[in-house]
């Protein structure tokens, strides 16, 4: 599973993307737990519920089942236009 980070999320993860391929998380909720552990700086933002998640370039709810081939993106509120 490929995870992509955008905007200031990258400043916390220190990377733009990464591959998680063993025991991949089955839901966004599980993914958040996993990433909180890897990047403690993300925790407060998850708690504030400000971040948005996309799976295969579509916004998703947290209950969606994740598959190993999915591309998951995590990013802050957008500011285009």
């Amino acid at each position, binding site marked *: 599973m490929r995870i992509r980070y*955008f905007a200031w999320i990258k400043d916390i993860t220190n990377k733009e993307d990464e591959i998680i391929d063993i025991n991949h998380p089955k839901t966004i909720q599980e993914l958040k737990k996993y990433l909180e552990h890897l990047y403690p700086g993300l925790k407060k933002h998850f708690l504030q519920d400000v971040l948005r998640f*996309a799976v295969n*370039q*579509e916004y998703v709810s947290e209950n969606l089942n994740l598959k190993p081939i999915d591309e998951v*993106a995590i990013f802050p509120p*957008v500011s*285009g236009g």
Partner: protein
Amino acid sequence: MIKIQKKNFNLEEEIEKIKNKHSDIGALTSFVGYVRDLNNNKDVKYLNLEVYEEMAFKELSKIENNTIKKWGLIDTLIIHRYGKLIVNEKIVLVCCFSQHRKNSFEACEFIMDYLKKDAPFWKNEFYYKDNEWLENSSYRF
């Protein structure tokens, strides 16, 4: 038509390319967003605009299709730039071509609202001393 690009664009050329395809267009409403010299009460030097390009295409296509259907538009054009954009540069162009003006006004505002809310672009605004990631306010939703 959706274009996500680094380079600047010429309004006349981009609009004529679409207009020339249709002789039944009576009305075009368009919106252009520019980099302002002042934001959050700070002097802006430039923006660094980041995009999640594959998703931006999907989201803007969805918004475009919904809008064409909802307002019976003849055509639309969305151009969104990314990368380093200096004060006074164009950021975005949205064009709604229709037979009559009322539809084109409403549709153009609708696209801008959804683009601002959902399209995955992020502005990193650089001032003289520091920088800040912006967030679009969502008071209209």
